[in-house]
Structure formats: C-alpha cells, structure tokens
C-alpha cells in the first residue's frame, strides 16, 4: 500500500486511541482533510523542485510502533551533550522515556505534549498557541493530523531557564522501518531565556522517516537559543518544519548542523510580529555519498526596525547534493529592516551538486538587505601552504573546512555543544584536530 493510503486508512484506528472530543482534535481532523487533499509533496511543487521524497516514501513504515524497546543509558549516552547538566525530554520510537528524561514543572514546564494536550490546566496555553503559526502545507498538515507527542516547554515571563533542554528522539527500528511525527510546542514568556538542543537518532540501520513540527513563540524581549544536531544514520530521513513567531525586542537564533542522514529537509520559518527583533539562522552542512540536505528558510519582516542574519555554510563531497533556498520578505511597513543573508558552498568533488537560490521580496523602500552566495572549491594555494609547513593533505583539507565553517561555529554559545560539533566534524573528516577552534 502507498504510504499516503496507509496513513489515511490508519486514521480511524488513531482516533480510537485519542480524545476526539476536543478542540485539538478538531484541528487534527481539519489537518487530516488537508493532507488527504494535498498528499505528499512532489517535485512539481516549486518548493520541492530539488528534493524528491520518492525513494523515502516507498518504505513500508510502521506508523505507531507499540513495542517499547529497552535502551540502556550507556548505549545512548554519547548522543546526549552529557558533559553539562540539562533537562531532557527523550522519546523512544515516539514514546516518552521517563527513564532517560529529566523534566520539570517547578518554575516552568519542561514536559510532554501528550500531557499538555490532555490535561485541563494546560488548556489555555494549547488554545492560544497550538497550531497557530504552523503552515497548512502537506507535511505540516500530516504532522498536525497525527499530533500527540513531543516536547512541551512553557516558560513564564522574567525567567531564565538555568540549564539547557535536550530534546532527543531515538528510533530503535525494532519494527523494521519506522515513521515518527513528533510535535513540539515551545512558549517563552516576556523577558525570559532558554537554550534548547534537539537531536534525532536512529539506533539501527532500519529506515526511519521523521516528519517533525516545532512551534516556538518568543514573547517580548525573550531570548531563545536553539541547536539542531542532525547527525543521524544514513538510513534515516528527516523533514523538519519549524515555525517561530517573535515579539518586539526578542532574539531567536537557530543553528542547524547537518552531517548525517539520508534526505534531510529543513523548513525554517521566522515571523517577526514586533519591532527591534533579531532573527538569527545559521547552519553548517557537511555531507558525502548520496546524502541530500535541503535548507528552506523564510524570514518574514512585518514590522519596522528589525534585523535578520542568515549564514549557511555547505561542504559537499562525493555525489552529495545540497539545496539552499533563502526567502526574505520585507513588508511595506517594515522600514529600516536590516536583512543579511550569506550562503557559501564548497564542492569538494566534481560530482557534488548545490542548488542555491536567494529569494528577496522587498516592498519597503528604506531597508538594508544584503545577500551573498558563493560556490567554490577548496583553495589549492592554502592547501599547499599548509602542506609546506608539514601538515598532510587530509589534515590540511580538514583545517580549511573548519576555517570555512568557523563563522557559524564561533557563534555557538554553549561551549560543550561547540566542542561536540567540532568533534563530529573531525570524525567525519577522519582527522584528529588537536585544539579547540
């Protein structure tokens, strides 16, 4: 059976397991109809021109894995940033793992979407925020239709969350191929601060398809610092749909590190609903083999005096392919906008491909919008220089790649995350960098 049909026909069974007598279920049902109408995206859609999900959709996915596999902490510790104290919201095959998690309700809620969707006390927050900025497109609708579980984070105003929050989705593949649809909701109150690290990790080589939706609401003068570590198994594919709404004077930064996985699609959308907002979007992509990473970003400048900064670096080896589509919309009212977009790519192999498309739609006349896009090779002269000083070619190339990606690395605010990323890159490049960059 085709995956779409399988999803559609599983909905009745799904409805038997959830509370259908709720506002949320009404939203789900509408989304279900939307997905039924739209189906999966094909390359005929402009937004999916360079990314085909066909090969991924062919798998016979288990949609609701019901066996919960046991995982020993020792086996998965390496996937946590374990050097720091943190809150953890951990899922195994889409089910919450209380054993691996560390949640809180003390001064703020760091807990589960399933609890938030079902308990009366969360109702006002869910009513106000759930599915309010998520687009009604194919895959977001699909996620919404089946939304039951994920991370729920609600930070009241004037609160600084003392330690980072790690959201990790493990798949065990115990039922061969697995499809997951996590749903995260993050509400950050006025003048509050939070740091979040998100990771998806398959523990076997059985195929995985994750279609995740994350909604983030950043109230006035709040600060959200978000890191996505995409270093999954080569058999795991990911569609990440993130929607971020910012109020005046807030700063939200999202770093996306894409090293692993089969097909990875990042839809990262920022909506600026106030003045003096700063939105920061940064990414490093290093892939090889037949890996594919697609970054679709949107920054919607709606009000005056706001900024956005995008910096995406890509290194493509062998037959890997990349897509960067960076859209910036500046509305007529959004005067004095300062929108910056930079996308630099290195093709290490002559069989690698990058499709880069900056897209600026500017309706205001007093704005500063800059964008730069480069595609190049590693600098042979620099490589020779390093070799001349005794640094072997492989290490020299690695150093050049680090140097290239450094503008993104250096803005990582959690030192342990930066170290981890550096280590992942060094492992990937097969070198041992003897110092912190």
């Amino acid at each position, binding site marked *: 059976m085709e995956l779409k049909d399988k999803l559609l026909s599983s909905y009745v069974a799904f409805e038997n397991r959830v509370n259908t007598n709720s506002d949320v279920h009404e939203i789900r049902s509408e989304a279900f109809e939307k997905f039924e109408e739209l189906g999966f995206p094909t390359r005929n859609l402009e937004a999916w021109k360079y990314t085909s999900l066909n090969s991924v959709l062919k798998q016979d996915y288990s949609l609701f894995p019901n066996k919960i596999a046991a995982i020993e902490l020792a086996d998965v510790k390496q996937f946590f940033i374990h050097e720091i104290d943190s809150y953890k919201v951990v899922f195994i095959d889409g089910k919450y793992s209380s054993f691996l998690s560390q949640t809180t309700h003390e001064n703020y809620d760091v807990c589960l979407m399933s609890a938030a969707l079902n308990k009366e006390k969360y109702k006002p927050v869910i009513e106000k925020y759930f599915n309010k900025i998520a687009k009604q497109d194919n895959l977001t609708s699909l996620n919404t239709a089946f939304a039951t579980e994920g991370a729920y984070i609600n930070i009241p105003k004037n609160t600084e969350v003392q330690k980072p929050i790690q959201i990790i989705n493990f798949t065990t593949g115990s039922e061969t191929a697995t499809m997951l649809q996590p749903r995260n909701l993050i509400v950050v109150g006025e003048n509050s601060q939070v740091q979040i690290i998100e990771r998806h990790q398959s523990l076997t080589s059985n195929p995985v398809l994750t279609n995740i939706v994350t909604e983030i609401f950043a109230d006035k003068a709040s600060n959200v610092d978000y890191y996505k570590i995409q270093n999954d198994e080569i058999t795991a594919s990911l569609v990440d749909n993130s929607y971020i709404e910012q109020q005046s004077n807030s700063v939200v930064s999202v770093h996306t590190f894409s090293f692993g996985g089969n097909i990875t699609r990042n839809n990262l959308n920022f909506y600026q609903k106030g003045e003096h907002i700063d939105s920061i979007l940064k990414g490093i992509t290093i892939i090889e083999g037949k890996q594919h990473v697609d970054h679709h970003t949107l920054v919607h400048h709606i009000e005056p005096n706001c900024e956005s900064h995008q910096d995406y670096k890509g290194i493509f080896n062998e037959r890997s392919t990349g897509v960067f589509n960076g859209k910036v919309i500046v509305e007529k009212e959004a005067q004095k906008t300062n929108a910056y977009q930079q996308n630099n790519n290195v093709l290490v192999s002559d069989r690698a491909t990058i499709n880069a498309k900056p897209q600026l739609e500017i309706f205001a006349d007093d704005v500063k919008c800059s964008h730069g896009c480069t595609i190049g090779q590693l600098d*042979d002269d620099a490589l020779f220089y390093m*070799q*001349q*000083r*005794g640094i*072997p070619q492989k290490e020299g190339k690695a*150093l050049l790649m680090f140097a*290239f990606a450094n503008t993104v690395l250096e803005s990582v605010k959690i030192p342990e995350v930066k170290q981890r990323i550096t280590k992942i890159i060094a492992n990937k490049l097969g070198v041992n960098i003897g110092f912190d*960059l």
Partner: protein
Amino acid sequence: MLKIENLNAEIDGKSILKGLNLEVKAGEVHAIMGPNGAGKSTMANVIAGKEEYEVTDGTIELNGEDISELAPEERAHNGVFLSFQYPVEIPGVSVTNFIKTAINESRKAQGLEEMPAKDMLKKIREKSELLEIDRKFLGRSLNEGFSGGEKKRNEIFQMAMLEPKLAILDETDSGLDIDALRIVANGVNKLKSKDNAVIVITHYQRLLDYIVPDFVHVLHDGKIVKTGNASLALELEAKGYDWIKQELV
C-alpha cells in the same frame, strides 16, 4: 645539502625552468637574483613540491635523497621550508594553533610524540621574542588582516619554530619597511648555523646588506647564467640585468 641537476619544469605546458643547476652546502647562504619572469618563484615552488608544476627532467636531491617525487608535506618533514612571497590567510585558525599543528604533524611523521605543551609554550615565547612579535598577535587568525610586514615576520617566526635544514626565502623583503626588514634579517641570521642553509630570492640588494650571501646567482630564462660573490649583487643593483643578457648573446 641541496643538489639540483638539470631541472626542467613546466606549468600548463609552458616551460619555465630549463636546465637549472644549483648546489648548496650546509652552512651556506645563496642569493638568487634575476629579472621578473626569470623563474625564481617557480624554482622555490618546485623545490617545495607544488603540484601545479610538472618536473619534466632533472633531479632535486636533499642530503643525498631524491625528493622530487615526494609530497610537499614529506619535503617539509625532511627539512625544506619555503617562506611564501604571498602567505595565504586562514581564518579561524590562530597562529599558535597552526604552528602547534605543523610541529606536531612533523613530529608524528618522524615517529615522535607530540611536543609537551610546556616546551611548546616556551619555544613559542622564545621565538616570538626573537621576531619581536607580541602575544596578542599569536592569538589572531593566521595572516588574516595582517599587514605585509606582519605576514613576512610571521613566516620567519614559523621558520624559527620549525628549524628547517633548508630555508628558501621567496622575496621576503618585499613589502617590508626598513625596521621590519632589520627584524626579519636579524631573525634569519640568528637561526643560521653550520648545519643549515638558506636560499634568498630577491630583486634587491637591500636585504643582502643584512643577510650576507656566500654566493649570488643570476637566474635568467629558467637557468642560472652567472654566479659570483656578494659583490655581484652590488653590481646588479648599480647596472641592472641588461648587461648580463647582452653577455649571453
């Protein structure tokens, strides 16, 4: 130390070195002078092993071993150092981290342990003082935003750290004011010993006032056409190169 025989090299099918012969013994300083386009930088790059150049004939021996087939890093591990005319910028890698990596990679190639951090720091301090380089400079990204003089001083600092057997200074004097020139030359002289050798490539006599050569060679059209002592450099400074070209006819 270095023995080059009948060296022929080309780039993109264009012949640049056409039968170059040169012998440099330990403890000697050789100056290579010559008009633009004579092949001076090519010679330096070919000795260092730059891949764009193809050696079509001849040999390059370092201490009796033919190095002409070795990778650039292997030549470096054997003691070849080239001070670049245009040192490249490597953002994100500090001077200190770069030189540490370079030294430890060389040690690794020789089967040695990494240099202990304490020894490394001591050496960095010692050599940076020699080149009058201040600490802040060492934390900056390699060559990024350095002035011409800073870049050249940094090259000689790296030379001091790596202690090569054969140092080739490719127009190290260009872009230097007189004070920087003195510091750089002083550094080179301090590093000189009876066990190593230096080849100075320059357009001008100026640098040779400070680093006094044992031999001066004139390179023209891909080979050495005249060899003399330090006084030849003075003569070239006064008369230019045309008289040599005429001698050749």
